[in-house]
């Protein structure tokens, strides 16, 4: 049973974190995401965080760790929907989300993953 819905649209996996997660739920979520990514041969994953009005360093680590796992699969995970106040708070804290590709919203993230064959970096 999924903690967090993972949707599949035109070869792109889309998921949205909207709640706080326990350690067990995080692992389960990451596992499910990686498995679906592999089984469906998806073009990539969009992680939407537009519902999160607080992203602390723990949540930031969940996001960057998940991205690293997806990269090890040879796939892509992009972020979208960081709220303006959250963005400024993350910068104030000094949290850097590394080499993640980020997009303003789901629309732009989806266009990125589907418009052309995105070359492996």
């Amino acid at each position: 049973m999924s903690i967090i819905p993972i949707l599949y649209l035109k070869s792109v996996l889309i998921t949205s974190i909207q709640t706080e997660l326990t350690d067990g739920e995080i692992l389960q979520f990451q596992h499910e995401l990686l498995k679906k990514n592999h089984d469906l041969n998806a073009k990539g994953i969009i992680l939407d965080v537009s519902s999160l009005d607080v992203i602390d360093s723990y949540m930031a680590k969940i996001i960057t760790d998940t991205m690293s796992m997806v990269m090890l699969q040879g796939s892509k995970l992009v972020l979208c929907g960081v709220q303006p106040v959250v963005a400024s708070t993350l910068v104030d804290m000094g949290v850097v989300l590394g080499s993640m590709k980020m997009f303003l919203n789901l629309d732009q993230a989806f266009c990125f993953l589907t418009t052309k064959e995105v070359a492996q970096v």
Partner: protein
Amino acid sequence: MNITLKSMINTVQILSTKDIIVARQQGRELAQNYGFSKGDQIRFATAISELTRNIITYAVQGRCEFYTSENEQEHIILAKIIDHGPGIDNPLLAITDGYSSGSGLGLGLSGAKRLVHEFLIESTPGLTTIEINIKKRKY
């Protein structure tokens, strides 16, 4: 610190991850009720999230107490995050960027410190108290 008056608003017991959310929501609401900007509300809530999460990670349980106060020029909202865990050996080191004793990014304390106006920490084995506040000018 020139805090003249302190009224305790309430206390949130921190026993599980769910309590982190409760504490930060209450912190945010308190800031909102006192007319703080959304930026201040979220920064305060995020600092509370970092600090209460440390309780879960290192101290098993603790509490977050909310106070309001004021001085001549400013309204002040305070949160005291208290636990009876093993304590932080070297608080000054712990609030340096990048330092981590756990599996985190090492930004819990230093990150939280940057989000608030004042940050006080006292830690001995058996008692750690972190007090943070945000201030808003009266007009």
